[in-house]
């Protein structure tokens, strides 16, 4: 086995809600970071195809250590909440090696869960989308980006309407100060984000890297995530919410 850390838990994948077309349902893996975009893309994929597993590539790069330390454990918690198996692969977090690690993760997902395609939450990043497209094509896997070029306003509305509960887990731009860390994106917060997006050069979705999010509940979660203990690491419009302790609770 390659050097990365794998974790597989076999569970039955979600089937699309209904098969209302001519083709057969495809088995897909969702490239998953724990944030709203990949989770919403997962939800979209579940409407049309079968999501067989979540796939996460975890960086060991010290630069991103503080971001990824909590996520290693929490990605597994989110997968458990969703009742989906998780394929988790470690990476040193260096550019080209990351692609090899991504390929390794997708190969593993194909071997373990028979995936035929990969779903990402890419919205605008041509660079990231192209990298995933290349790896998928090399492996003969379909690539799906259901949020591609999405209207940011409509997307955020749809996210809240669908019942996603999303917490701001990282801020990386002015004017987001420490008080934003840990805030849930509800209607009131969305109004504030809208005002900020108009006034400053930031995107409403945080796609420009201004915000990172963490999903605590989704319409396909059997249980929701309760954050029991968290601390903030913040300096000069750069900070993260370190979730120290979290568990699953009934919805």
């Amino acid at each position, binding site marked *: 086995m390659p050097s990365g850390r794998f974790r597989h838990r076999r569970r039955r994948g979600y089937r699309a809600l209904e098969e209302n077309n001519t083709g057969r349902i495809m088995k897909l893996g969702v490239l998953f970071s724990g944030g709203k975009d990949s989770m919403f893309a997962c939800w979209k994929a579940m409407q049309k195809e079968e999501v067989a597993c979540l796939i996460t590539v975890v960086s060991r790069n010290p630069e991103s250590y503080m971001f990824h330390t909590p996520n290693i454990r929490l990605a597994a918690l989110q997968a458990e909440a969703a009742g989906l198996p998780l394929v988790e692969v470690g990476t040193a977090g260096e550019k080209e090696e990351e692609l090899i690690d991504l390929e390794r993760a997708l190969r593993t997902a194909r071997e373990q869960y028979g995936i035929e395609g990969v779903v990402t939450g890419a919205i605008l990043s*041509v660079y990231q989308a192209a990298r995933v497209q290349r790896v998928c094509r090399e492996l003969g896997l379909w690539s799906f980006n259901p949020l591609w*070029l999405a209207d940011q306003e409509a997307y955020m509305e749809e996210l809240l309407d669908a019942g996603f509960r999303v917490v701001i887990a990282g801020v990386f731009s002015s004017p987001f100060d420490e008080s934003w860390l840990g805030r849930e994106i509800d209607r009131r917060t969305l109004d504030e984000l809208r005002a900020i997006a108009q006034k400053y050069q930031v995107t409403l979705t945080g796609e420009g890297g201004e915000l990172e999010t963490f999903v605590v509940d989704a319409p396909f979660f059997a249980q929701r995530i309760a954050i029991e203990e968290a601390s903030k690491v913040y300096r000069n419009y750069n900070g993260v919410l370190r979730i120290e302790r979290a568990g699953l609770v009934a919805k």
Partner: protein
Amino acid sequence: MILLIDLCYRDGSLSRDEFVAPVERLLCRNGVASVTRHYTAVGASDLDSADAAILCGTALMDTGYLEHPELFRWLLTFERPVLGISSGMLALAAAFGGGVDPCREIGMTDMNVLAPDPLFSGQEVFPAYTVHDYAVQVPGEFVALAASDRCVQAIRHRSLPLYGLLFHPEVRNEWIVERFSRLAGRQSP
């Protein structure tokens, strides 16, 4: 009204939001009316009422539309403006007898404009987003308008306003779709 044609593997597929919806939104933002049909469901009344047609792209692995050339024969007699995007370009070229050659490009690539045309006027070189496994063999009735280092990226019929683009103009080159829709507006009755 512009008829948007979804070439993806299934009507209402997971690829629709990626390849069709961005073009729908772009037209809507520019105040251009459009109606979308899956390529298997284009009816005579859809074609009669369209001022122009746009054939949208598909996922790299999605080539099912190429197995149904009979569903694209209407392109031979449509005579109003057509914009074939990526897979849509392959379908357009195939309708006019153009074959394909393997040519994979994924990512941003420079387009070199080869011949004057209203669609690219004022541009000599511009970067564009490509996601394709094949390039077209330019049919005899078409001319090449632009090319990357690897292959022909844009074609136009010699006497009709039929365009094919191998790259995706809806990504970072919305101006091309806007120009096309203005062209379509000018040619509508």
